[in-house]
């Protein structure tokens, strides 16, 4: 389980990067990206994924698999 950032919608504001408890978010060459190997969707740390909570764009950060 992991989340991903929809490239066409990300505005590169960077708000998600510091709130990630597993440091899975980094700035990629185009927009920010989430490392699917380390993303836990915040399970064990928070009730809701923190990046989704702070992201100013709707439906920009989604679960990788439905």
């Amino acid at each position: 389980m992991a989340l991903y950032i929809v490239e066409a919608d990300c505005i590169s504001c960077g708000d998600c990067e510091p709130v990630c408890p597993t440091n899975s978010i980094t700035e990629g060459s185009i927009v920010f990206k989430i490392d699917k190997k380390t993303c836990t969707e915040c399970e064990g740390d928070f009730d809701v994924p923190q990046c989704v909570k702070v992201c100013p764009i709707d439906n920009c950060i989604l679960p990788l698999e439905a």
Partner: protein
Amino acid sequence: MSSQDTLSRELALRIGLAARALPDTDAKRLFTVLTHCLGLPITEDKIGSLNLKTLKAAQAGEFSDIDDVSLKKALHILKHNVETGETLKPDIQAYVEGDMPGSVRIACASNDAINVDGHFGSCNQFMIYQVSADEARLIDIRFTDSPDGLEVDDKNLFRAELIQDCQVIYMASVGGPAAAKIVKLGIHPIKLQGIESITGIINQLQTVIAGTPPPWLAKVMGIEANNRFRFEREATG
């Protein structure tokens, strides 16, 4: 500054427009000079008594090197009522949907019609431009006064709806809840670090459009992902 509280909106507008008639003069400079020769508060009556000689001598001759023609023009603007629609609208250029492929429509929150100097919730007008890589047209000026006799429940929503057809709005400042309303309408809000000229903003935007626009911008401009660039699938690596 308490002096600005007592300056009527009409006079403020006249000072702004009059400053434009003078070389290298912004509203602030003219306002300072007027304060010097008329004292505060600046009123309609005091401005009525102003003449060329006083204006030229004011503040130790701040305007002494400006030619008489420009000064007379500025005086005329200061003393006469602004017919809003008439003074500001001649600049508007015709635009028909589809005229400018690969363009984006932007709104600039402005008080003086030259700079992005407005707060979203309090600016006098939104200057609407259609901008492509090699062209920019002022296509509309939308004043933020609510229509006569109409009570507006939510000022910020009213303002956001005023620019609903724009993809981006530039402003000097905006509050959080207002920004959320802007985003809800699908408009991308951009708050500047300070006041910048509208032409400066347009130039910057044109450089971005001509280069590789960020995906979100390309998307609102209607450019297909495949035409933009071939991105490496390293995003989720």
